[in-house]
């Protein structure tokens, strides 16, 4: 026997289930009035600095069917690359947003501003990106991924550099479909499967 470590094990994850909206986006479930408004309704407030952008997409399962019951959370820096809570952060940027795939179409939409470059914390700057966390029925532990942008220089990004199969990097790049409009589809499984992280 050796000495006992005094660390604890993380509580195990369980699926968020099909009714995750009751707790996380009550108005989507049809519950009004318990809270003044849903948490994380807006990534930004009026007057946030930076380029306004809208990202739309779907989350597709291994058969190509769009999930109608997924919940997504996003976390990002402000236009100067500073996270909310850090000194100098834009007070109009919440950084956090919660949104759901549409019940009928599976489409999601995130309205925000383009984030700036942020330090990795282990040297160098990361290309502009938005972190996503995806939960749903059938997903046992939340999936971490990132949105990058095709009209930015992503060549020096230290996280993307960790992806050995370079063609898989493309699954993390949002496509520009108009002025300030991007498309980002997430494929959970199969051909062109999106890169998911363990970070």
């Amino acid at each position, binding site marked *: 026997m050796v000495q006992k470590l005094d*660390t*604890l*094990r*993380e*509580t*195990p*994850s*369980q*699926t*968020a289930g*099909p*009714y*995750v*909206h009751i*707790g*996380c986006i*009550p108005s989507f*479930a049809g519950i009004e*009035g*318990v*809270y003044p408004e849903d*948490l*994380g309704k*807006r990534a930004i407030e009026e007057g946030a600095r930076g380029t306004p952008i809208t990202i739309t997409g779907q989350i597709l*399962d291994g*058969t190509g*069917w769009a999930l109608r019951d997924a919940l997504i*959370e996003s*976390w990002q820096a402000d236009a100067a690359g500073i996270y*909310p*809570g*850090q000194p100098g952060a834009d007070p109009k940027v*919440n950084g*956090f947003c919660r949104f759901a795939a549409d*019940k009928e179409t599976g489409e999601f939409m995130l309205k925000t501003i383009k984030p700036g470059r*942020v*330090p*990795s*914390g*282990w*040297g160098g700057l*990361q290309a502009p*990106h938005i*972190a996503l966390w995806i939960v*749903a029925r*059938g*997903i*046992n532990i*939340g999936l*971490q991924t*990132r949105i990058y942008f095709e009209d930015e220089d992503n060549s020096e990004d*230290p996280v993307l550099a960790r*992806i050995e199969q370079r063609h898989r990097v493309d699954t993390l790049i949002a496509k520009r479909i108009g002025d300030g409009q991007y498309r980002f589809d997430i494929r*959970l*499984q*199969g051909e062109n*499967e999106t890169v*998911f*992280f363990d*970070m």
Partner: protein
Amino acid sequence: MTASHPNRASTLPLIPRDRTAHPPAYDPDYKTTVTRSPRWPLISVDSTTTEETGPLFGHDLIGPLDNNLILNYTGGKAAAVGERILVHGRVLDENGRPVPNTLVEIWQANAGGRYRHVKDTYFAPLDPNFGGCGRTLTDENGYYQFLTIKPGAYPWPNRGNEWRPSHIHYSIFGHAFGQRLISQMYFEGDPLIDRCPIAHTIKDRGQLDRLVAALDMSAARPMDFLAYKFDIVLRGRRQTMFENRPEGL
């Protein structure tokens, strides 16, 4: 929506997740995972500033009835039907330190196993006085509590005759986006736990047992409510003094 907090700017690296503590993505006994689980391995990378920061929510967010599911749907005008329980515990990190001022959200079915959700069609009736969502912030010692009713078991389409054990869904933020966790709390002694393919996506029995809340008579209030205790552990931060990071990064 958010408020500043001293822990917020901390960017110490997160301890890499012990994936053996969690269910695998693919588990055919829980059928929906079959088409919703990635086939390629996750890309393991040290946390960055992105994962080491996260949203924090101020006390101004929380209304006085937000953690009282017996009363919050009617604004205190009428009480939900069911077995009245207090659910309480602490949120800690892997280093055993309390996680203060962090948001804990819960949701659940009513006493008959019916969810208030547009997509739930189970014929057990809705309770007109029960919504099923609650939230609170942990105190300075990481402690939280909810007053609610014990949810009922309910059937779901998986194998031919599948019933979820009574459970309460939990969502916990921590102080970093990389600590984000959703899980479920079960109740001591429920015979459906051993038959549930969702509970058994967790392959380590010791880990599954940690989701089973103990009856806690010491916290029950006589002639009012029973109590269950449920502690939660989130990822910790690496505490080494010798991070090899350039100044200012």
